[in-house]
């Protein structure tokens, strides 16, 4: 038994343990905390599986932003409805049935895994063969922005439409207002100093993550999350306010990324292939798409976390 195997086995046990605690815990806040821990541990698992890009995305989006959304909802439920997250009791019999379903699902998947052929390289050879024509050196970026750019284009619309869908829940009388709850931090507190220091730093890091993403792990979604996080801190520190949802400029900011992406796709169609990137311009086009996307993703994510406008508590 090698040290690596021992590490992997321990990590898997920890993952199962945190997942059970997140799902079965009595206290909702503790459950969420376990979930965030679980997300970070999965990030580690991704590193072990040679997936640095996924590890970044999982930590930033899967654990980070999802955690922020859940904690925000938890505190809102507690403050506004006095709902501490307690469950209605479930009788034992349905619980046993649920356990049976759960064990069946896991068992069948496990059997299928053991039946799959070992040593299958997947699409590694094809990606490697075509990487030089993709315009970038990072194979994951090549798949996301070139080989399967159609998926990514659609995904950027999914994110945007999620925001529209959240906005569709705005009560009539609050339409056009400032998303989320008003923040009341003292502008001279520690958070404020932090909030002033962070934006330039965050911007540099985000630009680097996009730039690096063409050759090394990174990319628009990870960078967008970093920018969104910086913005959230700035708002929390009371240095700036969320923009009004009726703002023209805000709406342009939301669509510019997907619009550049779709535009490149349609121009490609005029020259023979929808979303086709000519080899000589591929890198420049991918970077242009990624920078525009990063910007729009950051704005969209920040507003998704803020949610619908609410009257003050």
């Amino acid at each position: 038994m090698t040290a690596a195997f021992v590490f992997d086995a321990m990590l898997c046990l920890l993952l199962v343990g945190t997942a059970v605690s997140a799902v079965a815990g009595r206290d909702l806040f503790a459950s969420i905390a376990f979930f965030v821990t679980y997300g970070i541990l999965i990030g580690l698992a991704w590193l072990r599986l040679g997936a640095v890009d996924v590890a970044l995305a999982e930590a930033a989006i899967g654990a980070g932003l999802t955690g922020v959304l859940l904690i925000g909802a938890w505190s809102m439920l507690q403050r506004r409805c006095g709902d501490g997250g307690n469950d209605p009791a479930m009788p034992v019999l349905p619980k046993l049935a649920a356990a049976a379903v759960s064990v069946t699902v896991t068992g069948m998947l496990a059997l299928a895994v053991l039946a799959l052929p070992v040593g299958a390289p997947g699409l590694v050879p094809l990606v490697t063969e075509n990487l030089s024509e993709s315009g970038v050196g990072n194979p994951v970026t090549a798949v996301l922005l070139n080989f399967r750019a159609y998926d990514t284009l659609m995904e950027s619309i999914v994110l945007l439409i999620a925001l529209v869908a959240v906005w569709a829940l705005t009560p009539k009388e609050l339409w056009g207002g400032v998303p989320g709850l008003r923040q009341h931090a003292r502008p001279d507190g520690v958070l404020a100093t932090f909030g002033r220091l962070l934006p330039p730093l965050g911007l540099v890091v985000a630009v680097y993550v996009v730039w690096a993403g063409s050759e090394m792990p990174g990319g628009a979604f990870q960078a967008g999350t970093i920018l969104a996080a910086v913005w959230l801190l700035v708002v929390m520190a009371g240095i700036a306010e969320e923009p009004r949802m009726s703002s023209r400029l805000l709406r342009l900011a939301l669509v510019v990324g997907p619009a550049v992406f779709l535009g490149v796709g349609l121009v490609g169609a005029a020259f023979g292939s929808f979303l086709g990137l000519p080899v000589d311009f591929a890198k420049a086009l991918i970077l242009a798409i990624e920078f525009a996307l990063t910007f729009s993703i950051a704005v969209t994510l920040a507003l998704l976390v803020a949610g619908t406008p609410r009257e003050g508590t």
Partner: protein
Amino acid sequence: MMLSTATLYALCGAAMIGIGVYGFIVRAHLLRRVLAFNVIGSGVFLFLGALGYRAPQAGADPVPHALIITGIVVALSLTALAVALVLKHAEEAGRAVLPEEDREET
């Protein structure tokens, strides 16, 4: 026979899916359901990603990685809408539980 890294993590993903499914069925509190959805989601992604690592000497398959990054963003989008719906429902009904599932509290 010793389990390969890929098989080990794929099995771990399968276990996480099962755990999440249990939570999704048993926990009626809607925020807990959203949480269970995310546990299952990461389990599915780990399952897919681990199966793309069955030939480590050839390198990890980047296609599942790209699919997973897309999937993570899609899952976040769904989570954001679900959370917003849960909050709106709680403000209307006083509790983040669907009326037909609102039995005695534990």
